């Protein structure tokens, strides 16, 4: 059987891990096969979970989250016959598939939408943890906002500096309220489980929010502008489907591959004007075509626009 390890935050974070869960469930429904899974409780459990699954003969083993990087680097060589897939991180080993997403591209699109939907000209960003990956989201977002409205103000906050920050809705909610008081009327949460609190506070206070990873539009119908979808589900589905013969190596999913995007459904249809859709679609085409180069924060650990 294949196995799936969720990062801290848990599989029902309505966001990143939940997307992985959806992919796994879809695979299960499609193939009728079963899989093993575990939700990490602590940092130190990573290695044990990996080893335990490998010892028990699970194959392939998929894990969600960059934090598995160094542990996997160590464990993978011990189990050369087992295939591993890691999402959001690159691990260079013959039996590992590394899947990364161009989050900056998707964030660019929702940034444009935020700028266009904003009436105050101030939009917010709430990141989970202060790490390059989240800066990558933020930087793409900022670029998108500025592209649509060069005068816009962007307020940025990070929930915390530790993995606990992925799962702190209270803090997410308070940060949102603080941003609202500073004038923000659209807030983008790239914060895993913490985002639930952000979306909640935004809905309570009557402003718009933008979800992340999974399509979160349904959480507060008519209050969530859109979601920056990151198709972790596809990555997981593909890895499971690959089975023991999983193709290893480096795997980038961007706008071109539909690995990232923005979510449209009945819940947010009234919020998104045709004009917005048109602008965003145009930008998307240009990005795919390489006409717009969205800067990737992680390429040089810097963001050209603030």
């Amino acid at each position, binding site marked *: 059987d294949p196995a799936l390890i969720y990062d801290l935050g848990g599989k029902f974070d309505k966001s990143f891990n939940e997307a992985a869960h959806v992919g796994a469930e879809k695979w299960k429904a499609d193939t009728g096969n079963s899989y093993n899974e575990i939700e990490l409780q602590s940092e130190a459990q990573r290695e044990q979970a990996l080893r335990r699954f490998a010892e028990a003969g699970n194959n392939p083993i998929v894990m969600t989250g960059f934090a598995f990087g160094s542990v996997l680097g160590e464990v993978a060589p011990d189990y050369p016959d087992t295939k591993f897939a890691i999402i959001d991180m690159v691990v260079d080993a013959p039996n590992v598939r590394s899947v990364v997403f161009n989050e900056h591209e998707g964030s660019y699109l929702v940034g444009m939408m935020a700028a266009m939907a904003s009436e105050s000209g101030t939009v917010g960003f709430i990141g989970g943890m202060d790490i390059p990956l989240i800066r990558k989201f933020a930087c793409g977002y900022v670029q998108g906002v500025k592209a649509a409205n060069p005068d816009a103000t962007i307020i940025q906050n990070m929930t915390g500096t530790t993995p606990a920050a992925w799962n702190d809705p*209270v803090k997410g909610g308070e940060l949102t309220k603080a941003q609202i008081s500073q004038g923000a009327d659209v807030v983008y949460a790239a914060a895993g489980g913490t985002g639930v609190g952000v979306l*909640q506070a935004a809905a309570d206070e009557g402003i718009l929010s933008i979800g992340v990873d999974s399509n979160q539009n349904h959480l507060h119908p008519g209050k969530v502008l859109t979601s920056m979808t990151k198709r972790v589900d596809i990555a997981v589905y593909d890895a499971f489907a690959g089975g023991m013969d999983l193709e290893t190596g480096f795997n980038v999913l961007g706008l071109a591959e539909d690995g990232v995007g923005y979510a449209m459904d009945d819940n947010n249809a009234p919020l998104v004007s045709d004009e917005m859709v048109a602008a965003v679609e145009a930008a998307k085409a240009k990005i795919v075509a390489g006409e717009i180069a969205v800067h990737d924060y992680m390429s040089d650990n810097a963001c050209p626009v603030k």
Partner: protein
Amino acid sequence: MDFATVLQVFDSTVRLATPLLLACLAGLYSERAGIFDIGLEGKMLAAAFFSGAVAAVTGSVWLGLLAGIAASMALSGIHGLASITFRGNQLISGVAINFLAAGLTVVIAQDWFQQGGRTPSLVGGARFSPIELPFAEAVKDVPIIGQTYYQLISGHTALVYIAFAMVPLTWWLLFRTRFGLRLRAVGENPAAVDTAGVSVIGIRYAAVAICGLLCGIAGAYLATALQAGFVKDMTAGRGYIALAALIFAKWRPWYALSSTLLFGFLQAIALRYQNIDLGGFVVPVQFMDALPYILTVVILAGFVGKAIPPRAGGEPYAKER
């Protein structure tokens, strides 16, 4: 900082201080009666879960509140059993209760909802909604006073008002009633109460029960008012901060109000300003996070005046050695 921001920070202070205040008053009843309680954290956590869970299932926040109170009081009962009836170590009992709550909430949440130790999100009547005080809308544009009334005073959930009303009520109960006299006496010298023909055990259980009640409200506030549902460990050390506030408050109700507001304010600041720039020197957010704890240590060290706990605090009352 403009006035609107100040109001916002204070508004956030009130929200964040409310659970601290409730828990602090809860601890006040217990410790004034001579029962140390480091299990405030656990009781709040249990209450947060059960209120969230029951509210999610029934759709009624009031039923949720009742369930939260019941859960918290059940843990109080255990604490009472251990520290009053069986005269065990109150600190150890408190530690055990914190663990019990941390474990049980997740185990039960997982069993009931299979959502990784959380409850479903609460919507509509399953949550406390803000109460608009009279005329708030009308005066909202009156500078300063009207704004303050509208932004800061109006628009909180019922539990916030309950929490603040508990302060004068607690004062009155402790210092103006027979029950209060006996409760304070039992924390100072239980033998005096006993030989005066009053049951020490009865009073102590009553105090511990009130403690459970208030912790229950505090927990329910976290899950059903401040947030929309329970997530694991959602109390995040608030019980300990409440305890610190209690010491800071020298076990007095009005001081408890100011000390919890102070801690709430610190949290509000830490939330709002990640890295505070003090003219070149950047205060890291981790420092702000740790500030309430650091402050507690400073207070405990007696640098901010000495706090003398109730004399019989922490000592089980045993007539026979």
